[in-house]
């Protein structure tokens, strides 16, 4: 098992290198001068040149890339042009915030998605199924920034139950596991959860329906198992795939929904990317993308390992 995990991790390394190249090139191919946001409009040619050398933009792209990547492996992603703070610190803070939001949203989505999916799959083609399917289709198709705003109008503006923006009271950006912070998490997490909920419920419904149609379910009944015991078997059959889908959803949400984080002013990666793009803060931008991509790759490996452990039919080749 340990060998299998090591192998998966080793296999992930070339993928990460590829990811680094792609993310570096994309950022540098985009038009626009990265220094435009820090330079005063009337900056002298001399000052421009000085800054260019300081940030290393005067060197050739391959040189820049190798410089960047060799520092990146030591954990140094450079300095943000806009804030002149360490990119690594900025990104890690944002990743942590997004992780909290995305994990919470995925959990909510997984819970309700599985619930609706199981119910719909079990009572296929009944009214219950139709209702559950309707909810999940809504989940995938409703524009979530719109849903976010509707929730804000109802729960913050009208009822005043939950705060609309930010991560903590008074614009605090340090997360604490207490009710005051949880209250801020509610609305963005619920808004974000509709996407995984829709996808997970549709996946689970299809899986459950597929499994219930299999001969071994008749076999289980023929042993004298009651509905509840049969249900346990169905869950164990559905779990590997459902969890894999959940893991991938978490990966997508980790990219931070720019729209949701902007609507709720949640200081996560989406928020950070947004400002990095607008300020053409190249070190921040490529650092954020790289960290997210690595998280995504690692998450995939994790999902793979999880699925292999849960499903005896997948061999650990």
């Amino acid at each position, binding site marked *: 098992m340990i060998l299998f995990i090591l192998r998966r991790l080793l296999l992930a390394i070339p993928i990460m290198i590829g990811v680094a190249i792609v993310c570096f090139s994309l950022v540098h191919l985009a038009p626009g001068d990265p220094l435009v946001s820090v330079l005063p409009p009337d900056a002298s040619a001399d000052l421009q040149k000085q800054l260019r050398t300081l940030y290393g933009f005067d060197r050739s792209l391959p040189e820049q890339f190798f410089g960047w990547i060799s520092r990146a492996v030591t954990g140094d992603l450079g300095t943000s042009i806009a804030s002149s703070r360490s990119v690594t610190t900025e990104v890690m803070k944002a990743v942590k915030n997004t992780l909290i939001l995305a994990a919470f949203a995925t959990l909510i989505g997984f819970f309700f998605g599985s619930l609706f999916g199981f119910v719909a799959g079990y009572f296929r083609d009944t009214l219950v199924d139709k209702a559950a399917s309707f909810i999940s289709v809504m989940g995938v198709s409703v524009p979530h920034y719109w849903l976010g705003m509707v929730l804000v109008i109802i729960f913050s503006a009208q009822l005043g139950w939950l705060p609309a923006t930010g991560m903590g009271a008074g614009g605090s950006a340090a997360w604490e596991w207490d009710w005051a912070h949880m209250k801020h998490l509610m609305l963005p997490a619920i808004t974000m959860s509709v996407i995984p909920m829709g996808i997970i419920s549709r996946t689970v419904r299809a899986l459950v329906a597929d499994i219930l149609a*299999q*001969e*071994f379910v*008749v*076999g*289980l*009944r*023929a*042993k*004298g*198992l*009651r509905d509840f*015991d049969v249900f346990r*078997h169905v869950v*164990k*059959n559905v779990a*590997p795939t459902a969890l894999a889908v959940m893991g991938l959803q978490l990966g997508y949400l980790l990219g931070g929904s720019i729209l949701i984080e902007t609507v709720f002013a949640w200081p996560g990666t989406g928020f950070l990317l947004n400002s990095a793009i607008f300020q053409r803060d190249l070190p921040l931008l490529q650092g954020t993308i790289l960290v997210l991509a690595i998280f995504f790759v690692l998450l995939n490996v994790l999902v793979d390992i999880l699925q292999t452990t*849960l*499903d*005896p*039919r997948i061999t650990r080749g």
Partner: protein
Amino acid sequence: MSPASSATSAVTIENLRVTFAGGAAPVRAVNNVSLRVTRGETVALIGESGSGKSVTLRSLLRLHPAKKTQMSGQIEVGGRDVMAMNASELAAFRGRVASMIFQEPLLALDPVYSVGDQIIESIQRHMKVSRSEAHARALKLFEQVRIPSPERRLAAYPHEMSGGMRQRVMIALALACEPELLLADEPTTALDATVQIQILLLLRELQSRLGLSIIFVTHDIGAAVEVADRIAVMYAGEIVEEADVRTLMRAPRHPYTQALLQSRAHGSLAKGTRLATIGGAPPDLANLPPGCAFAPRCVHVEPACREGSIAIAALGPTHQARCRRTHEIVWQHTAAAKA
């Protein structure tokens, strides 16, 4: 009469009808089947593909989807009225009093549970024993069905075993709670010839040791002769002839049985094949003809065969057939042997 038949009856099926709704037209898969099995007896159900053998067998455990299935008639197993059972009585009955060996164990076992866990689950469902006692019992069952290195095999998953081993697991699972009645739905069709014989011998041995009653569904007349005391021949959801093995093999009286035996001379029936010796195909169960269902393919057919239902007629103490012309038709035994 053999001493076995004077014992109490283990299974009584009276006028069983099973109709599947839900399709374009209702499918009448079982039409008026009556069958008796005495304690310790093995009855083989044979017939072409689609003749309703599996449906009859599954009816005994009421395994058909409740919503789209109409069942009528009487089913009694060991004096219990199966048709009258509610859901929890049914669950206590299945696997405990009567259990089933499925044709394709790879499909009938849960792929994500080890075979040991599946047997232990069954034991703990019906018997009040601890997990370690159940484990010990599962181990003993594996030894009984002669699975080599049983301790290790208990931890295996269905896909990790060979077809013959899986079928043994299936048998062990069916025997786990010491049932009175074993329903075996083509337990050897998926296996190659040598393994087939091993499994059949094993079933016979277990039966005489445990005193089980068995209903054994098969395509293979050879297998039926090997294990059964009596054979019932099914056609289009009806039992068309029923007799003890010797009588049926020597003097079959229904034209369909005769055709079946003749086809045996051409090699055993493979699953899904049609009878080569008689033209035509079995009737559409959604659109059964009036009169004898076999009439369109029968070489002895006369106009009266196509009208009205035909009652089953006793031809001897253990022999009955559902044909208007049984008295005229004599089995050309020597002719068939030469063919």
